[in-house]
């Protein structure tokens, strides 16, 4: 547009106002939700117009906002599920952690995750080693936007027979993935971890090694607390996004032992910064 308003082009158009509607959503799980719909504009003046536009800039500056607030039906949902607010479709639900993580504009909508659960491209089942239960990794290719991506879901069975989708991530294609990740959920997860996992130290028989993902492992702790585990893993300060720790339970014994089914830590800032590049 700048070029179009250069010295030799379109000199009769002394001012161009581009106006558009957009919206922002402000919400916290369990709280109300506010939608702010805005009509906004940017103005560009021609550098050498045939004649000056005799209108103050503010006259043609379109700025207007309408806000709508809606409450969450938290009580009703909690009564129904007993496990906090959930949304369901068929045999799958999305839970509070999903909703919290995906509440911002770059998140994955619950309905899309639920649909992906019911119509996946591929499913990977991980049977827990230290107890009953399993974890599902589910992938589905999303082609509706200009930048295609693989949606990766993490789900667990509930006592009532349904599955709860706890996590959902976007994995945009890179040179290595060639858009094939949706056929291979475990490979998709490994890509997720390699891109956005936080390294931590693992006391292997040959000494401490830095890794980003751990499954089916027992670790001796100094005390039977999650903090002891975090200290042992040497997690850097500020890591606050524990993700997909499918099961960490401490076996009470003379020496507290932590049985880890599935453990990794998401660098949420890096993840969001990366996917937002594709969403702009």
């Amino acid at each position: 547009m700048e070029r179009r308003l250069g010295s030799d082009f379109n000199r009769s158009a002394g001012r161009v106002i581009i106006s558009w509607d957009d919206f922002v959503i402000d919400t916290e799980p369990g709280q109300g939700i506010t939608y702010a719909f805005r009509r906004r504009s940017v103005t560009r003046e021609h550098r050498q117009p045939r004649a000056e536009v005799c209108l103050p800039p503010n006259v043609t500056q379109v700025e207007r906002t309408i806000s709508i607030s809606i409450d969450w039906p938290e009580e009703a949902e909690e009564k129904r599920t007993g496990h906090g607010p959930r949304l369901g479709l068929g045999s799958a639900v999305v839970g509070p952690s999903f909703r919290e993580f995906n509440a911002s504009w770059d998140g994955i909508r619950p309905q899309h995750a639920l649909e992906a659960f019911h119509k996946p491209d591929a499913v990977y089942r991980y049977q827990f080693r230290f107890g009953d239960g399993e974890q599902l990794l589910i992938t589905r290719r999303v082609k509706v936007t200009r930048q295609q991506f693989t949606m990766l879901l993490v789900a667990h069975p509930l006592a009532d027979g349904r599955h709860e989708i706890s996590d959902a991530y976007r994995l945009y294609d890179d040179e290595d993935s060639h858009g094939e990740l949706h056929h291979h959920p475990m490979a998709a997860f490994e890509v997720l971890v390699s891109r956005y996992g936080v390294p931590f130290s693992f006391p292997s028989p040959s000494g401490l090694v830095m890794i980003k993902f751990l499954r089916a492992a027992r670790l001796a702790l100094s005390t039977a607390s999650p903090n002891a585990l975090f200290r042992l893993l040497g997690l850097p300060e500020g890591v606050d996004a524990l993700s997909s720790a499918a099961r960490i339970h401490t076996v009470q014994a003379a020496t507290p032992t932590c049985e880890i089914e599935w453990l990794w830590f998401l660098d949420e800032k890096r993840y969001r910064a990366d996917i937002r590049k594709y969403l702009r």
Partner: protein
Amino acid sequence: MLLSNTIREECYRQLAVLESMFADVGLANLAENSPHHPAVQQYHRLNDFVRSGVTYPDEVEVLREITSALLDRSVWAVVPSGADYWAFIPNVNARKRVRENILDPDQFNDTVAEVFFWSWLHEQTQAAELLEETGLPDIVIAPGTHTEVWAEVKRVRLGKSPMRIAEVIGKANRQIKNAQPRKQVLYSSVLNVLSSGLLSMMKSQTTFSRT
């Protein structure tokens, strides 16, 4: 049911506005002649919305539609009545053109955009006139004075390439140039530039259910 009374009332108001715009109760005639007309689709969506409440997961799109229409009307603010809805446009020929153009599915939103900007200028206490002359810009501001300015309103549809804006500016420039000898016609604008990228960027994830 989480559809608040305020939103519900606004929905009813917009249904009434749509009917008044077309002087067509229930948009029955329009729906029969042009079932895919954006106003017909909007009317049906609003009706569904009022009847079924906020249905997950499409609340954002519906709310966006409601507020977009509300933003349009925020500057002309006509309460529907039995009289001609478009009577607030003083230029009889322009009013006639608006009434005719909105019947065309391809021109409905473009026409509403024109009326919005014309009304916006009025709200900013500008002596703007909505025109109807073929080939000329849509609006003239301060006509007949030495500060006369012409305005052309173009609407770029969702999903079009940003390069489309450059084409639109060129086209508007030609129209403005053709408005000579009423010179210095230097205002062009584009409404609803929502590239697909921008739209997806703005789409937030909302996660709530309703009964």
